[in-house]
């Protein structure tokens, strides 16, 4: 049941093979059984069963969508009316959202059944899920390895079959990197494709919500429900939403795939390079043409990102001041004490580190040297992509430089952790869509556990349908996306 696609499950619901209530109960039981994975921060059992009941009635009445009655889960960054929305932080451990995020509203509207809220790095800052106030979610392929982050809980839930699919958000790789580490499909749409309203902001100019699923076909269905202009988000784009499922299975003959030399050189693990080589050969067999390209600004992406993202977060997180909602320190003596202790006690180390970096980057006398310079480089990076995508249809690259690393392995060195996002970050800076798909299982040394490897496909603005088709075609001739970790089949 938990390894079926959305379409298979929708067929089962329609033919009354099983009801949504039964399906929901099945997943609730699995969540219970695999609690040690720590994928969920909150399980909304009662709400889920109620929603499933409503979904069953809707299916019976004949006006259901493909998602009606399908058990999904939300990253705990999306506000959910009446349900705790913690953003992985002690700061919001007591926060019950008074409204639904647009994405939540849309998925509810489609009839999806929300099982609960998923674990994540605090305020989406992290690449390993180790920055969660609720403890790390465990990678089901190897529970001593990280699941990736920040949408770690989402990746774990989907990989382990604790939800059919999940929402994630991606600011510098937070959908794609955990998708790669956990062997699932994750799509970061074009900036502005999915509404950010109700998605707690980390870095507003980079944040983008997207689907995390077991296949490109499922991602197409889920994105269909999530995408679209939202008048509540001025940065969402009023661009028509195509039928993402319709174009799947289009021929790849003549497709020009660009491979940036900067992404396949030093720093990339041998086992990943080998796995990707095979995947790219598969595309050649499907008729695609491979073109080597150079994108010299890519190496500037990490410092650029950490200036811009930190600057925005330093301002975005100012509202968490202990005054109106969230954590408030005990017995503040005055206003300064209220602020410093509420924020000092409510935020974790990485969040505080980025607030400090961002505050510094925006300070008088440093603004030009850091923030303004970073914005200029951001433009250069965008131009580099624009140039590349005028020569090729899509760009392929690794998602991560290594297999999922061990728990605690990189927590002592923040820079090492930041380098994890080497291949994903530039895409956010350019605002482009990119998808991560499972492209092999590979051990990085003798005796080590084979772990999923991700392939990243980057497309032009609003080319989500193209990316989904390219991913889907690969998934028609390979079965990496069908593999489930031991014990979760």
């Amino acid at each position, binding site marked *: 049941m938990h390894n079926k696609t959305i379409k298979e499950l929708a067929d089962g619901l329609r033919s009354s093979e099983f009801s949504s209530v039964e399906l929901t109960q099945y997943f609730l039981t699995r969540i219970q059984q695999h609690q040690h994975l720590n994928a969920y921060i909150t399980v909304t059992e009662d709400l889920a069963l109620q929603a499933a009941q409503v979904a069953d009635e809707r299916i019976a009445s004949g006006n259901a969508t493909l998602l009606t009655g399908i058990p999904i889960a939300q990253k705990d960054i999306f506000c959910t009316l009446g349900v705790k929305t913690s953003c992985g932080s002690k700061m919001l451990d007591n926060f019950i959202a*008074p409204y639904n995020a647009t994405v939540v509203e849309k998925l509810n509207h489609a009839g999806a059944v929300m099982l609960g809220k998923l674990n994540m790095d605090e305020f989406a800052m992290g690449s390993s899920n180790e920055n969660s106030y609720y403890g790390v979610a465990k990678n089901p392929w190897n529970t001593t390895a990280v699941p990736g982050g920040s949408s770690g809980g989402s990746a774990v839930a989907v990989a382990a079959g604790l939800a059919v699919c999940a929402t994630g958000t991606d600011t510098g790789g937070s959908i794609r990197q955990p998708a790669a580490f956990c062997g699932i499909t994750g799509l970061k749409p074009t900036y502005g494709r999915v509404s950010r309203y109700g998605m707690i902001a980390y*870095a507003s*100019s980079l944040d983008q919500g997207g689907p995390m699923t077991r296949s490109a076909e499922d991602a197409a269905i889920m994105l269909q429900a999530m995408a679209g202009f939202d008048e509540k988000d001025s940065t969402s784009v009023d661009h028509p939403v195509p039928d993402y499922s319709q174009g799947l299975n289009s021929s790849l003959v003549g497709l020009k795939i660009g491979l940036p030399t900067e992404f396949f050189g030093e720093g990339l693990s041998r086992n990943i390079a080998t796995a990707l080589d095979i995947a790219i050969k598969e595309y050649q067999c499907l008729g695609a043409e491979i073109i080597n390209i150079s994108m010299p600004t890519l190496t500037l992406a990490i410092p650029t990102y950490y200036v811009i993202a930190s600057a925005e977060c330093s301002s975005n997180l*100012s509202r968490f001041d202990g005054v*109106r909602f969230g954590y408030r320190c005990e017995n503040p003596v005055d206003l300064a004490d209220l602020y410093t202790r509420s924020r000092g006690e409510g935020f974790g180390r990485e969040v505080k580190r980025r607030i400090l970096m961002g505050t510094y980057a925006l300070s008088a006398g440093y603004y030009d040297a850091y923030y303004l310079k970073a914005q200029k480089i951001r433009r250069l990076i965008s131009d580099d992509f624009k140039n590349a995508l005028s020569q090729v249809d899509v760009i392929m690259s690794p998602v991560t430089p290594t297999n999922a690393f061990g728990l605690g392995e990189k927590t002592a060195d923040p820079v090492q952790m930041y380098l994890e996002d080497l291949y994903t970050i530039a895409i956010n800076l350019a605002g482009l869509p990119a998808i991560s798909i499972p492209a092999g299982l590979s051990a990085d040394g003798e005796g080590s556990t084979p772990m999923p490897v991700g392939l990243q496909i980057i497309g032009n603005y609003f080319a989500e349908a193209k990316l989904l088709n390219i991913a889907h075609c690969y998934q028609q001739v390979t079965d990496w996306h069908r593999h489930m970790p031991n014990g979760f089949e």
Partner: protein
Amino acid sequence: MHTNQWEVVIGLEIHTQLATKSKIFSGASTEYGAEPNTQACAVDLGFPGVLPVLNKEAVHKAVIFGMAIEAQIAPYSVFARKNYFYPDLPKGYQISQMDLPIVGVGHLDIEVDGETKRIGITRAHLEEDAGKSLHENFHGLSGIDLNRAGTPLLEIVSEPDMRSAKEAVAYMRKLHELVRYLEICDGNMQEGSFRCDANVSVRPKGQQAFGIRAEIKNINSFKFVEKAINHEIERQIELIESGGSVVQETRLYDSVKDETRSMRSKEEANDYRYFPDPDLLPVEIDEAFKAQVKAALPELPEAKKQRFKTYYQLDNESASMLTSSRALADYFEAVVKTSACEAKLCANWITGDLSAALNKADLDISESPVKATQLADLLVRISDNTISGKIAKKVFDTLWQQPNSSADDIIDAEGLKQITDTGAIEAIIDKIIAANLGQVEQYLSGKDKVFGFFVGQVMKEMQGKANPAEVNKMLLAKLKN
């Protein structure tokens, strides 16, 4: 006076609350005076995940203002975040504009002691207002009311072009008049719809460089602006003359003690860490929109005043007064049009009796019990000699008391119609002459002044209802014989 050696330099920053129905970045109402925190939605409260959406009407009103001061309207302007912590600032930043404001360089002409002076306007930018902190009745704690949070403001920054508190007040009044004319701000200073910060410095006369300035915050009346600035000027001059020097700082005017006191120095000033707000797109304004706004612009006070002077042949003072508000000017034009009377007569009545009555009753022209058509009817009766000007005042007073009646009703009911029957007047004149032969003799011996005595006697006898011109003419004829 020591002040003679010093030149005063003043620049004003005026916050005008734009009269939009909803807030600048949310759909909550901007209505004043509601129960605390009943007009603050999730966006105004800065809840996690919420996003601002720009109110187009606020942009429209800012462009109207820019057009009215002949400023450059930025084709591309940007919202920026001004970051600082305060409990009545829910997001921890205020959305404002910094590098690229919507309204660029413009100007406003003021008149002081009969001289016209052009005051430069550096810029005007859109921003959101903060909430209010309430420090009373909370037993040592502070209350926060966020109803005002997110109310649209247009901050209008002048050049340091004013040289006295009087000029500053004239500029502030002129701006106040303009924003109400344009109907972009209700101008209510009590409710904080029009607030002023003043930058004040002094320098020895003839010196080019500016002195160190102090900024006086949040002055909310014309009277206080003048007082606060004059106090600050005096404080600075005394300080310098006693060997001290002015420090750059923010000062607060205490209207009760009538003094300014230091709030914070430059060193204590916040580093606001301005940066472009990534939640909002830049505002783009094209030529077509500007043309549309320009076409819809009402006649501006200065143009109206000039027109009143040339078209209606009014003197400067009457024209200024009548154009001091759009409603008053409209009232005047309605009276002229309906009555077809001489404009000067209409102007005199409106700036005279009507204004005096309104002032006494503390009413705005829009609340006048005597409507324009009613006043017009009254003036028609003066023009056609039905009543004299003196009787008209009496009719006006009655009309003020009985706004549902008309001038004609009152004239009829009280028998105030002017007597033009020469026979009746002649009889009275004869009677008066007969009774005052002594005065007749005086008049005939060359004492022309006595003529006035006869006029007065006749008018008294006729209870003021005789046509004065007719009385003059006939009396002159009779006395000469």
